[in-house]
């Protein structure tokens, strides 16, 4: 059961082979046994989970079950869930029991899917290794001395280790795709606006997007069917007709045009990652696809533009954490300014503070045009590059991350090196496009390698189809880490 797909679990529930309570109990037992080492969860609340499982079983007994009713899921601790401690990986929210549900949480509640717990993450989603969490780093199940990637590292690790069949994540610059790649699972960042941001604690509002993380593209499709949907409380939520993201899974790939950006296959891409990606390309050709070289000439500047735009938005988004209405307040202060400054100095970790300072600087008087406006113009150029590329291809393919999982502590003191971990993923967020990562092999040390697919706006169903066909022909996604 540990590594069953969502469809298999749903099948067990439908045929009465297992109840939701039983499934949840099994996963909770695994979490209890393994999480102390893995540290993938910040909060586990068995009582609450089992209460939700009982409700799901009752729903099924009453004949009102949906496709995934009773199947449990873990949620990144960035999603506000009523009654659950919601920390966003920060000391700032160490005591914040959310009084309301995020839209995504509501959607899973409506689908009858119990919450297994809240997963660990980089503080306020700022990080690529999960080492910035106030609640300690998450370990990579493939090598406990290594990082799981980030910021959705807890979600990726718990799915990879079989502590949950699936999890939610969020992706601002690669935070679903990079940890999915480093942990050997499948993750999808939808088109900006497909999943409501309401109740998802904001990092960089114009880039943030929630999405599913699971063992396969098929599972991701089923989860996206639950997560996606218009929400009037998010002004950037798009009013579109409800889609079935699994509708095209079975389509053959004959005639698929895969774009290979020459900038992704340059000098930065070497060794096992390059080899695995090339083998994946060969596999797609076998499945009937053709490839075409495309160019994303400005993608090399995406990291620079991103580290202006994301911190700028974050510096403002995180101003609400001031010790007045919720969360941490410093115990000793002399006056209001002292309270603010100490609360924020003590409540935020160093990476978050660094990004707030960068953001404050680039928006401050005299620097706005040179940094913020210039970055926004580059953002336009980057988006236009993609539009141009999609005149020649249906989907863009490349590596998800430049390397496999690195060692804990290896880049922790070097922000610039850490930022470059997202070199292949960031442009997608700037353009607002959908992107996904799926396992495509292992390096010499047995660490998973991720393959990135980037689609045109609203082409999630097509991307999932491409990934699913690949996963029918390969078994990388079915490999599991030894010891779990």
């Amino acid at each position, binding site marked *: 059961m540990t590594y069953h797909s969502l469809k298999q679990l749903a099948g067990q529930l439908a045929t009465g082979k297992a109840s939701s309570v039983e499934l949840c109990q099994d996963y909770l037992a695994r979490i209890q046994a393994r999480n102390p080492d893995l540290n993938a969860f910040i909060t586990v609340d068995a009582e609450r989970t089992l209460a939700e499982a009982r409700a799901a079983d009752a729903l099924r007994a009453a004949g009102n079950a949906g496709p995934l009713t009773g199947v449990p899921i873990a949620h990144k601790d960035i999603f506000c869930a009523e009654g659950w401690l919601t920390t966003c990986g920060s000391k700032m929210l160490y005591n914040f029991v959310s009084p309301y549900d995020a839209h995504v949480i509501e959607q899973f509640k409506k689908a009858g899917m119990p919450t297994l717990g809240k997963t660990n993450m980089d503080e306020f989603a700022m990080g690529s290794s999960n080492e910035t969490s106030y609640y300690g780093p998450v370990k990579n199940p493939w090598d406990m001395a290594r990082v799981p990637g980030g910021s959705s590292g807890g979600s990726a690790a718990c799915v990879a280790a079989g502590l949950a069949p699936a999890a939610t994540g969020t992706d601002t610059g690669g935070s679903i795709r990079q940890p999915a790649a480093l942990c050997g699972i499948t993750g999808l960042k939808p088109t900006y606006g497909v999943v409501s941001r309401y109740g998802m604690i*904001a990092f960089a509002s114009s880039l943030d997007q929630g999405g599913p993380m699971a063992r396969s593209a098929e599972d991701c499709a089923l989860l996206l069917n639950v997560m996606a949907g218009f929400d009037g409380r998010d002004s950037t939520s798009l009013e579109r007709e409800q889609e079935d993201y699994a509708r095209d899974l079975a389509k053959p790939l004959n005639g698929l045009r895969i774009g290979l950006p020459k900038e992704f296959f340059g000098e930065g891409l070497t060794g096992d990652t390059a080899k695995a990606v090339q083998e994946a390309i060969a596999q797609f050709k076998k499945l009937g696809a053709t490839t075409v070289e495309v160019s994303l000439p400005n993608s090399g500047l995406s990291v620079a533009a991103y580290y202006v735009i994301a911190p700028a938005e974050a510096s403002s988004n*995180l101003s609400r954490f001031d010790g007045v*209405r919720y969360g941490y307040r410093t115990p000793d202060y002399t006056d209001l300014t002292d309270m603010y400054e100490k609360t924020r100095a003590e409540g935020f970790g160093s990476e978050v503070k660094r990004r707030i300072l960068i953001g404050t600087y680039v928006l401050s008087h005299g620097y706005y045009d040179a940094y913020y406006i210039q970055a926004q113009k580059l953002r336009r150029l980057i988006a236009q590059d993609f539009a141009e590329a999609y005149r020649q291809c249906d989907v863009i393919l490349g590596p998800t991350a430049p390397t496999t999982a690195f060692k804990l502590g290896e880049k922790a003191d070097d922000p610039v090196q850490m930022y470059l971990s997202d070199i292949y993923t960031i442009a997608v967020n700037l353009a607002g496009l959908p992107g996904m990562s799926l396992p495509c092999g292992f390096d010499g040390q047995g660490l998973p390698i991720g393959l990135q697919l980037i689609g045109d706006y609203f082409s999630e169903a097509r991307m999932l189809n491409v990934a699913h066909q690949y996963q029918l022909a390969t078994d990388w996604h079915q490999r599991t880490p030894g010891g779990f």
Partner: protein
Amino acid sequence: MQWETVIGLEVHTQLTTKSKIFSGASTAFGAEPNSQACQVDIALPGVLPVLNKGAVECGIRFGLAIGAKLNRVNVFDRKNYFYPDLPKGYQISQFPLPIVEGGSLDIQVGEGDKAVTKTIRITRAHLEEDAGKSLHEDFHGMTGIDLNRAGTPLLEIVSEPDMRSAAEAVAYAKALHTLVTWIGTCDGNMQEGSFRVDANVSVRPVGQQEFGTRREIKNLNSFRFLEQAINYEVRWQIEQIEDGHKIQQATVLFDPDTGETRMMRTKEDAHDYRYFPDPDLLPVKLDDDWIDRIQAAMPELPGAMRARFQRDYGLSAYDALGLTSQREMATFFTDTLALAGEANAKLVANWLQGEVSASLNRDEKDITQAPIAPAQLADLVKRIADGTLSNKLAKQVFEVLWTEGDQHGHSVDAIIEAKGLKQMSDSGEIERIIDEVLAQNQKNVEEFKAGKEKAFNALVGQVMKATKGKANPAQVNELLKRKLA
């Protein structure tokens, strides 16, 4: 040296929407602290703003009313600063692309019929959210924060520095107050803070082209304070300069108790607001269709109505301004006119500006709370016009109508009948009384014949007294003259 005052006003008008600008919380005044502060208003982690259509519509209405350019695409920005009554740590406002740009408002400068019209240009008007309130009563040495007002929609209206005296600033503020209440975008309640004025004041030697350094007086919530604060500030600035000091750009507060302004902060401690487009809100598009529909539903505006009253009814500028100071007053006037006939326009205007306004002031009432309706005022005016009532009698009838109209079915004729206030017009009857008066006042008659004009007036008085004031004075005059001829 002769000094010239230069004033520009920034007016925060609270919009009349039911819900807040970015959340579904109520904007009703006076609720329990924080009971109308929803998750968006208190800025819980993860919440997002959604723009209220009603607030945008108010912005459009105002822009149309001042003949401004409406930015077909306008943008909301974040203004970043920390303050406990600002829960997000930023205020959502409009900076480079406000909803309204340009436009103007006419004011009357000078008293009575010497009043002339001056045009005050408006720079811009932008939509933004209000902050909460800090309550400084002592909570163990701490301040209490009430966020009920946080997120209330405001339209901030910024004028050009076109005013040259406190009186002009007050005239502009009043004209703006009339306009925003007239078009229904603001309830104008200054006590509740629905209409708050900031005044930018500077002085310069007469004839100098460039402006002096300005100081901004914050949060003036009555026209009287506006006038007092500007007058004080102008005197202070002139004194400073004449004493050899330079004016430093600053924000000041007016203290109504002392009548003085005091420094709040200088430009040096001015914030770096780090404005940038709010990524949670998209650019706002104003469709022509929408604007046209709003335009079609606009009432006749006070300026146009004022001109029409002067042109069509021959009213003075002063009367026209008074009658259009409030939309309900103007409606009362036109409703009365419709019943009394346009020929009586001047008479109706006089009554509204005179007895009606005085009675409203005395009773501290608004025209909407007046105990008489246009129908009664029209009847009263008609009875004056047809000679049934003298002005003096009419005032008595009016008094009865105002205080106990309900006892007479609110009927002018019923009151005239019941109180016997009809003007005596039977000349035979008046002649009989005159004959009596002449017989009894031979001394006055002789004096008059000896050339004393005063004696004539005494005789008129005697006749009026004998008729209990009901005789038509003009008629009495005429008959008396004839008898004495």
